[in-house]
């Protein structure tokens, strides 16, 4: 069962799972800017749409980070 869902905000996630910060930093390059600076209060879904990111891949990477 997924712990992280697309309606959670970036802040919800990094506050609960510190290890996910590294994932967002990896995606900064694709986003073209610092996600945690500019989309901290956005839901994952909204943030992924904003930066044209692959939401499923992002969710998968975040899930992996929370379980490692």
């Amino acid at each position, binding site marked *: 069962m997924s712990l992280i869902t697309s309606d959670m905000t970036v802040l*919800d996630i990094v506050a609960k799972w510190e290890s996910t910060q590294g994932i967002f930093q990896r995606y900064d390059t694709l986003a073209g800017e*610092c996600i945690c600076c500019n989309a*901290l209060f956005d839901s994952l879904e909204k943030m992924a749409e904003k930066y044209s990111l692959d939401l499923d891949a992002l969710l998968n990477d975040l899930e992996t980070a929370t379980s490692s």
Partner: protein
Amino acid sequence: MTISIDAKGLACPAPVLRTKEAIDTQSPGHISVTVDNDAAAENVSRFLTHSGFEVSVDTDGKTSVIEGNRPDGYVPGQGSTDPTPGADSDMDRAEHQKIMVMIASQAIGTGDDILGEKLMLSFITTLKEMGDDLWQLVLVNSGVKFAIEGSPVLDKIQELEEQGVHILVCGTCLTHFDILDQKKVGETTNMLDIVTAMQVAHKVINL
């Protein structure tokens, strides 16, 4: 209880996380957070505002001190971590449109300034007819003057606020006109809040 956090040298999301942890564990009535980058200042301000604090920011261009005061009686944990102004009432308005009206001048149209001002006053007075579809009224540039003491439509805007419309007033604009202390209605806001709210709105009307 007063808490001071030195978050200089920390990149996002660390300043917000430190602020959140302090609020969650100590529930302070006053908090002071010092940061040294614009993104951290914006995010900490938004987070504190959403957490029920009245926020003021003092900056020298390099370092910003964000002061938050929370009135007695505030019940923590009633909000989400989505600080989009009005997010908490989204469910209440689920069956309605979310219309944002942005007013950026004292007059509607060009050609005759006196007529334009009359039209704008009439427009603001008539806004209530949008009913529950009117979600946010954003005042920027000289539009912020409608939110200060002596504004001919101050009572109309206050009525809208009482009816649940979120009134956002540009803080940079109030400071520019040196009327920050004269504001009588609405929440002092920043461009990040405005842009975020625009994304959420179903319709944005610019005047």
